[in-house]
């Protein structure tokens, strides 16, 4: 199996999870796709120069998070791309889907970028605290304290307290 084949197989198997995680970080698909493509491009370059990466998911996640945090530090936020037209054919559950996604994005938006990244890595990517700390290049204690602060903030989000305490929206 060539490097191209291996990389293609890796992208095919992981792009869905990476894109969903990127959406949780950024809140919109164009930016999420940019983020994933930037991370995968850097991974492919490393792959070509050094051979297959031992743990490509970990490598891509790390590049993705650091790139996301760097983007958030920029003073200029870039254009807001709207490739799909806002108007489109109505579907039965479209409004419900949009509401759910808006609620999710609104909830995560109350978190600063670092806390949001930790929440996505810990609770969506299922990383341990030690792995999250390795990706974030911070201490495990920082992950713990930031997770606790993020949970406390999410508790205060209207409608989310019920999800966290009873497993259903209040």
């Amino acid at each position, binding site marked *: 199996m060539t490097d191209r084949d291996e990389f293609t197989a890796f992208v095919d198997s992981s792009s869905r999870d990476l894109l969903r995680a990127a959406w949780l970080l950024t809140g919109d698909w164009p930016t999420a796709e940019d983020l994933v493509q930037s991370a995968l491009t850097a991974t492919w370059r490393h792959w070509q120069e050094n051979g297959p990466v031992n743990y490509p998911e970990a490598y891509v996640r*790390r*590049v993705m998070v650091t*790139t996301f945090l760097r983007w958030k530090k920029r003073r200029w936020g870039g254009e807001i791309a709207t490739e799909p037209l806002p108007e489109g054919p109505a579907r039965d559950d479209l409004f419900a889907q949009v509401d759910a996604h808006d609620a999710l994005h609104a909830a995560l938006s109350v978190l600063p970028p670092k806390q949001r990244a930790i929440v996505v890595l810990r609770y969506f990517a*299922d990383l341990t605290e030690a792995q999250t700390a390795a990706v974030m290049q911070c201490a495990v204690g920082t992950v713990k304290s930031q997770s*606790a602060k993020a949970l406390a903030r999410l508790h205060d989000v209207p409608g989310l307290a019920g999800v966290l305490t009873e497993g259903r929206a209040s």
Partner: protein
Amino acid sequence: MNDVERRLAEWLHREAPEPPRAVSATRIMDRELEVRTVARPRRRVWPPLLAATAVAAAIVAVILAVTSAGQDSRPRPAVSPTTTPPTPTTTSPPSADLGAPPPDFAATRLLGTTGRYAWKLTNTLRVTADGGAHWTRIPLPAGVRPGAVDTAQVGDDGTVVLADAHRNQTVDLYRRPAGVTSWKLTTLSTTPPGPGYPPPYAQPMQADGNFLTVVTGWGTSPARSVDDVWISTDGGATFSQRRTGLDSGVHDLLFLDADRGLLLSQHETLYRTTDGGRHWTKLGGSLAGRHDVEFGALYRDGADVLVPRLTYTAHRIDVALYRSSDAGATFRRPASPLQVRDAGSDPLYLGVSGRIVWVAAGRTIFRSDDGGATWSRVASDTDVHRAIPTGPSTAVGVSAADCSSNDPKERCWQTDYLVATTDGGRTWHSL
């Protein structure tokens, strides 16, 4: 992971929208190739500037050659040339030029917790038995290429065990008893829990003479992996294999004998077995997992088991060393835990050997000589970020510059170096 965290995880998995389209690997690879091979427009260059540039390039090349010597020596695959020159495009180069990540997120690794220490650096394994004064280089087994060894373990008696997991789901286990120069190879045939799993990973956990334990697992991340525990009482000649059946991978494992053992999961949950790993019972009470609690690892002090419990709050970290004399059936809590108020953003590492406990937190080092009952601050303003005790007043540690930055180009892992102390941690010298 507690209930709130689990609900949050379930909610995120449920509500995160499905992507509208997949990522095209071909596009990414071809775009990168275009960026690399697009011919830059030729410009007229002022001759003195050209000469200065050439000199600077030569200097940079020499510096790169010097700094890369001794690092990754694997041959670099050449970029395959394209048969059709790509059309120049206006594609901007990717912004995420992050370079190579550290191979293990740390170039220097200390393995082992008592007496003898292994050091893995640039694919070399070294062992010391005298607190770092002398190191013995251990050649890798014949046929094992540098970099292939996944993990290593060094037992109290000097037994070294290496694990090399393969894509065909087998794990080569090399064992070398103390004082012996040859390696004994045992190949474990692992069985993935289903189709589509990546190759297994393997971690030798204990190498106590003829008693060996190994953990193998499958999954995209240890937090979601399916792990097996392998136990041998005859130096690796035969193994009993038990699938843990837990909802996450194994973080640490400690057996007191072939039947009684403790397991710390990747989800910060402690389990206990009395039948060689056939069944695992979750510990409760103060040792139940919570989102603000971390259990550093499992340590052994003679017949006792030690479990450091770290409780994180917004302003401090409490370190309490729990001790069990009945293989984890009951634990005793220390009267007064260590309260670390200035851990900052640096890691907090524990080193435990019997009743001597070291905690390196931020730029401060604490030591307890009575099993965590009382603590003293032995050093401040130090770069030592890990300390493993070798005696009442000696320890080997790893020193590094501040690694808290999020800048991936700040390769702090390259600055790791080994240090030792002979005066109880007050001063440290590099090894």
